[in-house]
C-alpha cells in the first residue's frame, strides 16, 4: 500500500556540514517499508522546485514510529528541506520502489556505500539482521566529514571504511579495501548490495562480476512521478527500458547493460 500524506517533523538534525537528517512521524503506524525503498517529498517554494524530490529511506524506528531521511544539500530543493524545523509538516509519497533483496537466515551480505549512498544501507542492514542474516558494511567517502553516523552502522554489523584523503579508515576507493580479499575469497558465500555514485557502483559491479559474486545496485535516475506512470526514469536493461522508480531502484547487475 502506498500513501501520500503530511508527516510531522519530530526533529531536524545536522550530522555534518551540508547534510540534514529529518526524523518524521505520523499518527498511524508507518506500515511496511523495505530497506532500499524510497519516498518522494513535496518541496513547495521556488519555481525550480516544482517536482517532488526522491530520497531513500534511511531508517525506520518502529518503537517511536519514525521515518528517517538522510539528505545531502546539493541544490534548491534539498536546501529548503534543510531549513525545516521540528513541528513542520512535510508531504511524503511512500514507500516507493522494490527495495534490496530480502535477507535469508544465515547468509552474509556485504553492503557497499559511497557518499550519501550509505543512507539506505542502514535500514537494509537492520532488516538483514532481523532476518537472521549477517550484514557487513564497507563505506567510502571523499573524506571523514562525508561519512556520517558510523556508530549507527556499527551497532548493526562490522564496518570497514575508506576515504579518498585517508582521513578515516584505509585511503583510496572502496574497491581497494583490504577486507575484500578475505570477505570475498573463492568459495566464500557472500552477496553484495551497493548504493553510491555511478562510477563507484560500476567499479564494485566489475569486481563482483570478476569474482562471480551476486551483486545488486541501487540507481538514482531522475524522476517525476515515482509511480511507474510517466516513464521518465528508465534504465536500459536486458528486458528493454524499465522504470527505475517501480522495477528498481535496485537491480541485479546482470540485468543491466553496463559495460563491466
Amino acid at each position: 500500500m502506498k500513501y501520500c500524506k503530511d508527516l510531522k517533523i519530530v526533529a531536524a538534525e545536522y550530522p555534518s556540514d551540508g547534510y540534514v537528517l529529518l526524523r518524521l512521524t505520523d499518527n498511524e503506524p508507518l506500515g511496511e517499508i523495505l530497506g532500499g525503498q524510497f519516498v518522494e517529498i513535496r518541496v513547495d517554494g521556488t519555481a525550480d522546485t516544482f517536482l517532488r524530490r526522491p530520497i531513500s529511506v534511511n531508517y525506520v524506528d518502529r518503537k517511536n514510529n519514525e521515518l528517517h531521511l538522510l539528505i545531502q544539500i546539493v541544490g534548491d530543493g534539498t536546501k529548503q528541506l534543510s531549513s525545516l524545523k521540528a513541528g513542520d509538516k512535510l508531504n511524503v509519497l511512500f514507500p516507493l520502489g522494490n527495495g534490496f533483496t530480502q535477507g535469508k537466515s544465515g547468509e552474509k551480505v556485504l553492503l557497499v556505500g559511497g557518499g550519501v549512498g550509505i543512507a539506505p544501507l542502514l535500514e537494509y542492514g537492520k532488516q538483514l539482521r532481523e532476518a537472521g542474516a549477517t550484514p557487513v558494511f564497507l563505506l567510502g567517502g571523499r573524506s571523514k566529514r562525508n561519512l556520517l553516523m558510523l556508530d549507527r552502522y556499527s551497532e548493526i554489523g562490522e564496518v570497514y571504511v575508506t576515504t579518498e584523503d585517508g582521513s578515516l579508515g584505509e585511503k583510496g576507493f572502496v574497491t581497494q579495501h583490504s577486507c575484500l580479499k578475505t570477505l570475498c575469497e573463492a568459495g566464500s558465500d557472500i552477496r553484495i548490495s551497493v548504493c553510491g555514485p555511478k562510477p563507484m557502483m560500476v567499479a564494485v559491479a566489475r569486481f563482483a562480476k570478476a569474482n562471480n559474486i551476486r551483486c545488486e545496485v541501487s540507481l538514482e535516475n531522475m524522476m517525476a512521478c515515482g509511480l511507474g506512470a510517466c516513464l521518465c526514469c528508465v534504465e536500459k536493461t536486458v528486458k528493454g527500458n524499465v522504470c527505475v522508480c517501480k522495477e528498481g531502484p535496485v537491480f541485479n547487475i546482470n540485468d543491466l547493460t553496463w559495460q563491466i
Partner: protein
Amino acid sequence: MADISVKIAGLEMKNPVMTASGTFGYGLEFADLVNLEEIGGIIVKGTTLNPREGNDYPRMAETPHGMLNCVGLQNKGVDYFCRNIYPQIKDIRTNMIVNVSGSCPEDYAECAARINELENIPAIELNISCPNVRQGGMAFGVTTEGASQVVKAVREAYNKTLIVKLSPNVTSIADIARSVEDSGADAVSLINTLMGMSIDIERRKPRLSIKTGGLSGPAIRPVAVRCVYQVAHAVKIPVIGLGGIMNAEDAIEFFMAGASAIELGTANFIDPAISVKVAEGIDSWLDRHGCKSLNEIVGVVE
C-alpha cells in the same frame, strides 16, 4: 451541488476532469492514492500499433514552473494493451480512454480499429501532436492536410467517440482544429506539450537525450488558455482544455475560455489525488458563485 456532469459526443462523464495521457499510466499505478472511479475519465498512455522502446535516458528535466520530457511514446503496442492491460482496467467504473499514436495514417487506423473492438473503451484520443518522435506524430499535427488525412483514416475505422489532440507548435491552431472537425472528429483536446530545450551549462550539453522535448506544467498555462479560446471560437465540436492546470481555479479559467472539460497532466506528479480534488473544487466554486451548472460558465469570455 452544481451539475458538473458533461457529455462529449457519446462520452458521458460524471465530472469534467480527466487525467492526461502519459502522466497517469493506466490508472492502476495511482489506485492506492486516489479513488479512480471519482475521476471523470482516465486517458491512458500513448499506444501505437507496434511496440516502441522510446528515447534514451535522460528523458526529463525540471524547468521553471514545469518540466521537459522526451519519453518518445514508449509502449508495448496495441496487441499487448488489448491482451494484458485491458483486462485489468476494463472494470474500473470511469471512462477509460486510449491515447493513440502512429507514424502513418494506416498505423493510426489499424490501432484504432483494434481498440474499437474493446467494449469498455468508450473513446480514443488521437495524438497527432507528439513532439518527441522523429518521424510521424507531430508531422501530422502541424499541417491541415496531414491532420485531416489521419483523422479521416481513423474515422473510417473507429465508430465511438473520437477526440483529436492538437499541438500548440503550429502557426494557426484554429486552422488545424477546423480541418480536424471537417474530417470527422467528435471533439478536440489541447494543448499537447510545447517544444522546448534546456542546457546543462557545466557539462555544455542538452539535458535531454534527444536535445529537445515537450514542456508541460504551469509554465505553459497562458499559452494553453489562448489556444483553447481561439479553437473554441473556430469550431462547433466540444473542446477539452489542458496545459498547466494545477487546481480548480485554473480549470475554471479554461471553462471560461470555452472548454467543456479539462485534463490534468503534470499536476498528477505533484499530488496524485489532484484530479478528485479539482473536481470537488470546481463544484464548490460553482456553488460559491451561484451557478447551478458548469454550462453557465463555459465560454463566457467572448
